[in-house]
């Protein structure tokens, strides 16, 4: 016969376990049918064979992956996409960090800083497709920039590299994605104790040393979060590349999409799985360097 003293803890732990299950239930209910199941379907399809007109033949093999990994095309597509990812990351980071730094350290009033921060989000009230397309009349051969440059006799011929080039793709990405750097970096910087900076200043540290030894390490979490946003968005996008490069550049997702448009689902599924693994790998490497849980929980 068990006494009440013994029964109570086990009942409590059962209750506790039930409560914790209950609290994650909403997320599980959303993620399982809308993420896990489709994901498993994609992974399963990636091992199958296509019948050439939209059907999937149950004939498990590694052929789709073999084809992908032995093709120079895969290599070239990833190189192209990684190039855009790296460039976009670099410029969004430089601009994003600069803006966040200014807001956090140079704007004295918190109210003003917050209002300026909100101002940064105004361009995002319009769709990013519109924001991207607006660059075309600006950068074209008869666009605003070239008209001004040729009008001022700074160049003799309109600059062609401004549009339908790697340059215009990066411009569009940086324009679209800098906010994803500003927000997390600003939130990290805003939490830095100003006294630490003053102490370093008093101890004779220069501006650069303070940035390098105090601010950057403390902003690491924000930078990492922003980097994950930017890299995963660029890796998974094809529309910006397609439009802004004038169709002159390929991308991993564009190639995948072409396969879907001719109903080659298994090949497309394998491409999707590989892309997912690559993005996961990049995100893992970035997040290894920081404690995101701490950042979010703080």
């Amino acid at each position, binding site marked *: 016969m068990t006494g009440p003293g013994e029964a109570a803890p086990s009942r409590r732990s059962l209750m506790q376990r039930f409560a914790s299950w209950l609290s994650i239930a909403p997320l599980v209910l959303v993620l399982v049918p809308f993420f896990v199941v489709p994901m498993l379907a994609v992974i399963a399809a990636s091992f199958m064979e296509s019948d050439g007109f*939209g059907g999937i033949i149950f004939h498990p093999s590694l052929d789709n992956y073999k084809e992908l990994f032995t093709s120079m095309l895969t290599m070239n597509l990833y190189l192209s996409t990684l190039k855009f990812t790296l460039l976009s990351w670099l410029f969004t980071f430089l601009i994003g960090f600069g803006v966040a730094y200014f807001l956090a350290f140079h704007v004295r009033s918190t109210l003003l800083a917050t209002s300026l921060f909100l101002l940064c989000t105004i361009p995002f009230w319009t769709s990013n497709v519109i924001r991207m397309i607006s660059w075309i009349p600006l950068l074209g051969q*008869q666009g605003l920039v070239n008209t001004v440059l040729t009008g001022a006799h700074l160049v003799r011929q309109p600059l062609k590299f401004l549009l339908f080039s790697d340059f215009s793709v990066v411009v569009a990405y940086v324009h679209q994605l800098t906010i994803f750097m500003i927000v997390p970096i600003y939130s990290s910087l805003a939490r830095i104790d100003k006294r630490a900076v003053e102490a370093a200043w008093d101890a004779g540290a220069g501006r650069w040393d303070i940035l390098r030894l105090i601010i950057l390490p403390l902003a690491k979490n924000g930078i990492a979060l922003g980097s994950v946003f930017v890299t995963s968005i660029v890796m998974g996008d094809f529309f910006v590349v397609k439009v802004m490069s004038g169709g002159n550049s390929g991308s991993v997702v564009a*190639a995948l999409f072409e396969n879907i*448009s*001719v109903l080659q689902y298994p090949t497309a599924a394998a491409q999707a799985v590989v892309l997912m693994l690559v993005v996961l790998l990049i995100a893992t490497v970035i997040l290894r360097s920081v404690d995101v849980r701490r950042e979010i929980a703080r």
Partner: protein
Amino acid sequence: MKKPSRARTTATSRRQFSRRTLLKGAAAVAGSGAITGFPTIWAQEIKNIELRHVGVSYSVVKAIGDQASKDLGFKVTMQNLDTSAAINRFVTQPASVDIADVEGWQAKLATKRGVLQGIEAKRIKEFPNILPIFTKGEINGKAVSRQGISPFEAMYISKPDATTLHDGVADYLTFLPQVYNADSMGYRPDLIGREITSWKELINPDFKGKAAILDVPAIGIMDAALCFESAGLIKYGNKGNMTKKEIDFTIDHLIELKKQGHFRATWTTFDQSVQLMAAGEVIIQSMWSPAVAAVRVKGMPCVYAPVNIKGAKEGYRGWCNGMALMKHLSGKKLEAAYEYLNWYLSGWQGGFVARYGYYSPVPSTAKKVLSANEWDYWYEGKPAKAPILDPYGVAMEQAGAKRDGGSFMDRVTNISCWNTLMDEAQYMNKRWNDFKVA
């Protein structure tokens, strides 16, 4: 009104006529007096029917659906998707579509997938009047090109539920042609200074950095093939169904051109092609006829290149969209669908699409709704005697203007290949991406 009048000049008589035919069909299905033929009862029966006609924006047009709803008494909803999303929806979500708007190659895919039901040719009133390009694969007694997937090739099946195409005429149709045209190139006459009548001009080094090509792999590669064939670089067995070797040759040459900086851009949508030309980025590119007109409406000179067949070279790349009935349609909804198909070919739609440069498979009915001036301009290739208005009443061309490419007959008899999906589509896509990423 025992026999419907042949001359159906007004919307009212058309409406009465089509309702009667539908009634006959419906009564036959019902097999009893459930539907007795009183218009009011019929109106009650059909007013809750909704047909979803799904397809690309240049073929499935809201204004046409609205007019059909008005004339027929039931609701027709037009839904637009791009080519790729459309075919994916037809084969993976067939129940979400009633009437699929498909090209020949899509009809072939959807038929193989078993998502369509055959259209009974004898229930299409205008079927005997459809141009023989579609129904017999010939025009003026001359066989129409079978390079690519011609509408004729993709049109027939022997049984309503067949999953393979029937070569030659049969009683059931995979799709009913509704709109088509012949594509070539557009160019800026003011900047080029001479007439362009040949595909090889698109790859002429004179236009380096000022040319663009269509970036839809399946048809972009055919435009490229027309160029290379025209330049005498290669002779294709079938441009619409290349061998791997032919694909390699074509893509390798495209890559070479790209590396020389020949292409300013490639385009995917109608609007992009208009923008490229109107913004002065390119002076020659593969282009669709209404896109050329859209550039001209912006006040910029632009000509649609007539690329008539010369020997075994040149010619237009033809395309044709048609309506297909999804397998799930039955009962009253199927009757309504047949009525809609019959309405579609009865003239109003033919007149509507003519006003932006596309053709009806039954020109004889379109002619009834077009003015003599419009008919002469769009179909006969004669100079306009009065301003030409687009379908929404906006002036497009002034009196005296002449349509590029000449008459309807000049165009359609010069189609040398059709939009397609090659047997080696997957390989071709892969190589096309090599071109994109090069």
